[in-house]
Structure formats: structure tokens, C-alpha cells
């Protein structure tokens, strides 16, 4: 039997709104502090209280961060989902439950070891009040788990202290609850289980962070001053994160006045309008949203494209179409974003794969938007945005200065003979911009209706065409400016895997597995749109390209066909769109089943 020290996964089933989140976080963080690589996936309902919610924790000494669908231990604390949860434990695994009440016979599997802990009973005996008893029950299981998995009690203590430093009462009760759970388990089972933790030194240069928080840090560091938004899951925490950081780093020490403005709009049409207005006036402005918001922003995105106004949008994708499953993940907005709005349009898109890239691409988004004077959409997703990922510490180069693009200053305008807003002066397809309130010579009339290169209203065919042809050239030229694809070549590989965004973690793990099975594969992950030529080259170098993505219709493959001209016949879609994060398992079975057909 393989040694599972620091290499296992477990799942905690509770009901939401009962405080289990903090218990799960505590366990995650404790493992992390032991120096052991760990990731957590939160599977929660679109509801505030009382519905089933799961938290999956994967411990991987190899540092794999993808979701795994195989669970060694199930912490089944929600009777509403017992049956489902019992079924999900791997054969030979463990199941911990609240033994205050007996388990129904039909829930008993003889290939699973059951660990009963009378959590409710323990808490009822030791705490007063319904609410506290419920909350403490969820801390108690953390204690029990810490014993079963061999989590260092010191670390747990230290973490609880940090958390409740300012609330001694809470600290005591939490500590008590943890002990209750731990002591009971120690007294009744021999600990730890074969799935156990051992201190490592693999996390000291890393952090545990979600992608919405890191993206909001990116906005802060990029110098964004205007944030406009309308709340929507799973994008909400991005703006809330930004607000939090601004309150800490953007308040004038003397006057206590703010160096930012966050506008909670009445809807997404208004939010993107505010971003466009602010960018037009010269601020770095952004709005976070999700699929429904992208649909509503369509008209305005076309205006920004045609009137050539920077705008930064974060689409934290969730499961569509329509309202879909707001608390599930997907990569379903690729096409909608790339060609948003009626008429001929194309938008620069960035595709982070984890919270670190979410941070970096947030910064890049503002530079690209201002340099190319057009909307830039960062396509994150719920998995990146709301789950806790272990990533290398974020770093910042203090020499960084924003690329504001071709904006004429008052001095330049003074010197200039005259100014034409949409003239391709430098032959790079990018005209010069002016900001309102700066200089009389800079004035022009911005419009989404037909305009000439001089910026005048026109219904003249040639004048109209000259401008939109240049805009097409301009946006295509961004292919060389967006983050280049990640490409990995493996010895003996004849086929390739092509993917995007959060699929990365699962793909690289899957490639290791398949390489071990004698199937080495090359790898390409697109990071920006329009695609650079390396993408076409890679696709053409490989007879077979497995295009891995999280949507039903193979939208990445569609973009690849449209933009590179590589025929569909070279691309095999491997699709997973059930709403949970992708696992290596899906990729491996996807590839092997395709191979079955191919050979």
C-alpha cells in the first residue's frame, strides 16, 4: 500500500451559514504552516444559509494543486447529503461523522472505516445557546481532524490566537471546542491515520490566496483609481478586496481623504459606462463582473472599441448559460468576450491560470488597455477567483511605471500645430489621445457613430472604412503585446495539449501521469488574445492537439480555428463543464479515450 503521508485528499460536508468556513480555513492554513503543499476547493450553493456545502482539501507533497475527485476521508456532517457523501469515499477510505445520532444501515459500506465523533453531544454538554453550539460543533470537528491527520496542535493554537487576538472570549471557546474534538478522537481511535501529515519545508516562499483578492491587489498596484461595479457572484469579492486595500493604502494620512473612488452602480450597463467615462477622462478604471454582466455590457464594449477608449473588465466566469449555476465554475464566456457587441469587433482578452497570474494580468490589463485604447477583458473564473490556491509569493518591481499610451500633455498640445484624434501618425495603427480639461487644442468630439480619422462625424464610406480598417490592424497588433503562451516541449512528444486558464493545474499533472505511462505530450497554454503566431506554429507542429477547456461548445478551439486558420481536424476537444474545478483525472481519461478512437 502506497505511503500517503502528505499525499491525500479529504472532503468536509456541512450546511452553509453554520460557520464551517472558518473551521475549514483553519485546517487548510495549519497544514500550510506545517510546510506541506495544500489546496482547497469550496463547493458552495447559491444560497445564504442551510443548504449543502462541501470543502475539499488536497494535500500534495508534489505540489499538485488541481482538484482530485478521489477522497481518502469524508467528514460527513450534513445528514441531508449522507448518502451522496458516503458513496464518494474511495474504497479503503475513512468516514468521520457525528455519532451523536446513529447512522442508518444503508449508509454503512464495509470497505470504509467509520469514525464516529459525538460532536453535537460534546458541544451541547460544554456550550450554551443554540447558535454557539452549532458554531462550536464546526470548530470541534477541526480539532478531531487535527488529531486524525496529525496536524501540529501548536500551529492550531497559534492560528486561533492570531484570529481571536482581539476577542479573548471567543478564543477560549474555540480552543475548548478544538480540544473536545481532539481529545475525544485520541481517546477512542489510534491516531494519526495512514493519511497523515509530516512537517515539510515546501511552503515558506508561498502564500494561500484566492484570485479575486490577488486581482484586486493588481488593480491597486497598477494605480487604478476608479472602480465601478454591480455585485455578482463570483466577482463580488474582487471589488470588496480592492476596497479593503484602498482603505489601507489609499487614504491620505493627513486629511484622511481617499485617493480612489469606488462607485456601486445600479447595474452592469452603468458600471461599464462609468469605467468608460473615467478612462476617457484619464483614470485607470475597472469593473469586475460575471457572465450576465458581460451580456449586459455588450453595447458599451462596442462603443469603447469603436471610439477607442480604454476599459478594463474582469469576467470571473461562472456556469452558464443565463443565470446558470452562479456558484459553479466554467470557461463559457470566451467567445462572448472575444467578439462582444454587434458589428465587427474584437477585444483583447487575458487568461490567468491562478491567483498569481490574476495579479500580474490585472496590471498588464491596464497597460494594454491604455496602450491600445480599447477594452481589455481579463477572463478569470470562480475556481481561480474564489478558491484558496497555494502560489509563490507575489513580487513587485518598483521600477514599474504605467504605460499610459499615446496621451498628449498640455505642453505637447501647445507645441502641436493641430490635433486629429483618429489619425495613424506613427503607422502603428494607434492614434493619439487627449484628455478633457487639459488644453483647448486637444478638444474633439467622441462618438460611436461614423467618424473620420480627423474625428469628424461622417457618413462617407471611405472615411468610415479608413478608420475601422485601422482599428482592426491595431487590435491584431496586440497579439505581440499580450502575455505569450506557456509552451512546454517534452522529449518524444508527438501530440500536444492546448489549454487555457485554470485548466493548467490539471493539465500539467495529467501530463506527468501520462508521461509516466509512456505518453509524453507537448503543452501550450494561451494567455492572451489575439493569439500570437507561436500558437499557430504549435498547432501546426502537432498532428493531434488535445484542446482542453471547461465549456460545452469548445470555445477555445473555436477561437483557435478562427484566428489561426488551423483546421478543426487537428484539434480534439476535451471538454469538462460540470461546474467543478478540472481534475487531472478528466484530462487523462479524455486523452486516452480520444486515443482509443484515433488509433
Amino acid at each position, binding site marked *: 500500500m502506497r505511503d500517503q503521508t502528505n499525499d491525500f485528499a479529504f472532503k468536509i460536508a456541512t450546511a452553509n451559514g453554520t460557520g464551517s468556513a472558518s473551521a475549514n480555513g483553519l485546517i487548510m492554513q495549519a497544514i500550510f504552516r506545517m510546510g506541506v503543499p495544500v489546496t482547497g476547493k469550496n463547493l458552495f450553493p447559491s444560497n445564504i444559509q442551510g443548504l449543502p456545502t462541501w470543502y475539499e482539501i488536497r494535500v500534495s507533497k508534489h505540489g499538485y494543486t488541481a482538484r482530485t475527485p478521489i477522497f481518502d476521508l469524508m467528514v460527513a456532517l450534513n445528514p441531508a447529503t449522507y448518502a451522496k457523501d458516503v458513496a464518494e469515499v474511495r474504497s479503503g477510505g475513512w468516514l468521520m461523522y457525528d455519532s451523536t445520532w446513529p447512522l442508518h444501515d444503508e449508509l454503512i459500506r464495509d470497505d470504509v472505516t467509520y469514525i464516529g465523533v459525538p460532536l453535537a453531544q460534546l458541544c451541547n454538554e460544554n456550550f450554551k445557546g443554540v447558535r454557539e453550539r452549532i458554531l462550536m460543533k464546526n470548530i470541534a470537528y477541526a480539532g478531531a481532524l487535527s488529531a486524525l491527520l496529525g496536524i501540529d496542535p501548536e500551529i492550531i493554537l497559534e492560528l486561533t490566537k492570531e484570529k481571536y487576538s482581539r476577542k479573548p472570549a471567543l478564543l477560549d471557546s474555540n480552543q475548548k471546542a478544538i480540544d473536545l474534538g481532539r481529545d475525544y478522537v485520541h481517546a477512542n481511535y489510534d491516531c494519526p491515520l495512514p493519511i497523515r501529515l509530516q512537517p515539510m519545508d515546501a511552503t515558506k516562499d508561498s502564500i494561500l490566496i484566492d484570485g479575486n483578492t490577488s486581482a484586486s491587489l493588481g488593480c491597486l498596484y497598477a494605480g487604478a483609481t476608479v472602480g465601478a461595479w454591480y455585485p455578482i457572484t463570483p466577482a463580488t469579492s474582487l471589488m470588496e478586496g480592492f476596497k479593503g486595500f484602498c482603505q489601507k493604502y489609499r487614504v491620505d494620512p493627513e486629511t484622511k481623504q481617499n*485617493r480612489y473612488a469606488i462607485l456601486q452602480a445600479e447595474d452592469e450597463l452603468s458600471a461599464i459606462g462609468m469605467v468608460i467615462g473615467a478612462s476617457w477622462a484619464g483614470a485607470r478604471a475597472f469593473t469586475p463582473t460575471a457572465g450576465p454582466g458581460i451580456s449586459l455590457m455588450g453595447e458599451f464594449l462596442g462603443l469603447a472599441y469603436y471610439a477607442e477608449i480604454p476599459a478594463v473588465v474582469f469576467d470571473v466566469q461562472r456556469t452558464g448559460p443565463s443565470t446558470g449555476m452562479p456558484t459553479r465554475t466554467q470557461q463559457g464566456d470566451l467567445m462572448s468576450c472575444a467578439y462582444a457587441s454587434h458589428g465587427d469587433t474584437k477585444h483583447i482578452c487575458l487568461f490567468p491560470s491562478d491567483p498569481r497570474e490574476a495579479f500580474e494580468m490585472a496590471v498588464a490589463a491596464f497597460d494594454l488597455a491604455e496602450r491600445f485604447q480599447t477594452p481589455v477583458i481579463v477572463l478569470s473564473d470562480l475556481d481561480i477567483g474564489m478558491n484558496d490556491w497555494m502560489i509563490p509569493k507575489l513580487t513587485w518591481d518598483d521600477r514599474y511605471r504605467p504605460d499610459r499610451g499615446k496621451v498628449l500633455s498640455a505642453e505637447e498640445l501647445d507645441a502641436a500645430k493641430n490635433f486629429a484624434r483618429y489619425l495613424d501618425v506613427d503607422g502603428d495603427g494607434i492614434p493619439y489621445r487627449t484628455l478633457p480639461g487639459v488644453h483647448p487644442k486637444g478638444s474633439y468630439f467622441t462618438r460611436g457613430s461614423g467618424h473620420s480619422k480627423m474625428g469628424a462625424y461622417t457618413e462617407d464610406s471611405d472615411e468610415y472604412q479608413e478608420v475601422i480598417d485601422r482599428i482592426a490592424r491595431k487590435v491584431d497588433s496586440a497579439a505581440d503585446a499580450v502575455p505569450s503562451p506557456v509552451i512546454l516541449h517534452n522529449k518524444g512528444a508527438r501530440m500536444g495539449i492546448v489549454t487555457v486558464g485554470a485548466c493548467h493545474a490539471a493539465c500539467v499533472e495529467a501530463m506527468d501521469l501520462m508521461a509516466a505511462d509512456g505518453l509524453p505530450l507537448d503543452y501550450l497554454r494561451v494567455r492572451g488574445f489575439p493569439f500570437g503566431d507561436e500558437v499557430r506554429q504549435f498547432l501546426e507542429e502537432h498532428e493531434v492537439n488535445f484542446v482542453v477547456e471547461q465549456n460545452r461548445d469548445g470555445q477555445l478551439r473555436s477561437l483557435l480555428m478562427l484566428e489561426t486558420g488551423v483546421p478543426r481536424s487537428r484539434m480534439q476537444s476535451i471538454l469538462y463543464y460540470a461546474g467543478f474545478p478540472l481534475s487531472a483525472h478528466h484530462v487523462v481519461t479524455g486523452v486516452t479515450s480520444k486515443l482509443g478512437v484515433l488509433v
Partner: protein
Amino acid sequence: MSYLAKPKVHHPSLKKNALGLTRRDYEGSLSTLCAGCGHDSITAAIVQAFWELEIEPYKVAKFSGIGCSSKTPAYFLREAHGFNSVHGRMPSIAAGAGAANRDLIMIGVSGDGDSLSIGLGQLCHAIRRNVNLMYVLENNGVYGLTKGQFSASADPGSTSKRGEVNSMSAIDGALMALTLGATFVARCFSGDKAQLIPILKAGLVHNGFAFIDVISPCVTFNDHEGSTKSYAYTREHQIELVQADFVPVREEIEAEYAPGSVQRVQLHDGSHLNFRKVAEDYDATDRDKSYAYIRKCDEAGEVATGLLFIDPDTKDMMEQAQAVPGPLTSLRFEDLCPGSEALEKLQMRFR
């Protein structure tokens, strides 16, 4: 259109303001609206108001949506940036621009379709936010640019050019603004410059959202018998509740008013308004009284005009946001980016 650019000839004769600028310097390109369109008169009044206020054109930002009315920002202040956005969504564009640069002097021009149909939500929320914007609603009761369909301001019972009768209740922008807590509410008639100009000046000086509903007849589609937005009808039914005289900061207050007959309201820049009560017992600083009064006029079939309500000391959007003075756009990057050390430190939270 390009070939309509107006020759910018300077008549030495033309009167200059303190900046040495003539009215011509506040004009824009030649109007392409129908001859006699009420919107053109409003444009002329806007030119006059800016000239009299001696505002440097380039410090102004002009906003509009889509419609005949929304074309007009091209016809004034040639030297100001203009933004002809999309239909009904101008308020959000202006709010964003105002957030980026609160020093901009912002004017928005819209129509009743742009403002009360597709744009109603944005207008209402811009009022709530108290965006520092003078919002001129050129109200003709129809969609002019799409050839004369009823708009949401068409009165029940009024008829279209083809004779159809409007059955739906009308949205009265002024009453709605009052209900939403607007801090400046006026109604005028495009044909009445004497009334319009001082109100425009006050609106530009007002610190916050200045809502100005201007009845502006559409000669092509809504100037017939049976229309309640025609020149004839408006002339006949307009009644002025208050006359507002705008008194700039540096001018002395002449006490030429009969004592008691005038209400003096100070604006935040030190200039002020003298209200000469036409309807006595009217109080332009009492929201509920003005609401009731306007309703009374409605009942009497009268169109109440004038600077109907003002609350001079309110916080505009950026004050509510407690933002630093001056444009956010002029902050130094060093004051925006916490830098690498701070990043290193704050990440302790994530371990």
C-alpha cells in the same frame, strides 16, 4: 458633418467677456437640426450662459446620449471635449468622468426618449448619486430622430401627428427628480431665453446634479394641434412660479427689489440667486411645497416653469466618496502604488 464646419470668422465688433472671448468662441459646428427646432434655441442659450459665466471652454466636458437633442453638444463649445455616447446611458459616462476628474465642468444634454425611456434608470441613479452635472433634458414629447413616436413625457390624451391618442400616463421629470431627492430642479421653455439663461448659469454653478427640463418643441413631428409640447400650447399654458436672477460672485447685490418680495439663495461658490416670487407663498427651497405647487399647476392644466427647487448645500458624488480634492487623474503614481515592501508585508496575511 465634416463639410458643415462653421467658418470661425471674428467680428471685432462682437462683445468680449472677461476672458476676452466672444459668443462665437462658445459656439460649435453648424446645427443639422430642422429649421425651428426648439433644441437650437437651447443651444443658443447654453452658448450665452457659458459666455456670461466666463468659463474657459476647454475646462468643460459635454455629454449626451442619442437623439436629435443629443446631437447638440456638437453645436456649442467647439473647444471642449464632447462625448456623444450610446442611447440613454450618458449619466454613467458622466459619473465616471466626474470621478476621474472632479474639476471638469460637466454638462449633459439629452432628450425625453433618451432620459425617460431607455435611460430612466441611469438618470434616476445619477440624481441619487448627486453627480456634479448640469443635465438638460430637451423635452419634446416624441422621439424626434426616429420620426415622431410618443415618448414617456407625452401627456395622456395628447395626439400624435398621425392622430393617435396617447393613453399612458406621462413621466414628469421634475416631479420625479424632486421625489428622488434631486438638489436642483428646474423647468423651462426653449422659447423663453430670459428665463432659461440664468437657470443654466445657476445649474452650472450648482454643486451637484442640476436637473433642467426644457420643453423644446419638435417642429417636424410634434408641433401640431393636439400636442401638449407644441410652441402654441406651451406659450399658452406656461406659467412661471419663480424668476431666478443669477448674481455672480463679484457683482454687488442691488437692493432694487421690493422688500420681502425676493428670496436670496447663496450658491457654494459665493455667487447667489435672487428668487422673485411670481406666485407668492412659493418657496423654492422647500421640496414638498414645490412638489405640491407643481401638481396644483398640473391639475389646472398649467405648465409650471422656473427654478422650481434648489438645495444649495449638499454633497456631490465625490464629496460623498470622501475623495481627495482635485482630479484623481493628477495623483502621482507613487501615491497610488504601495510598492514592493508593502506587498511583502501584507502577504503575511496569506500565510
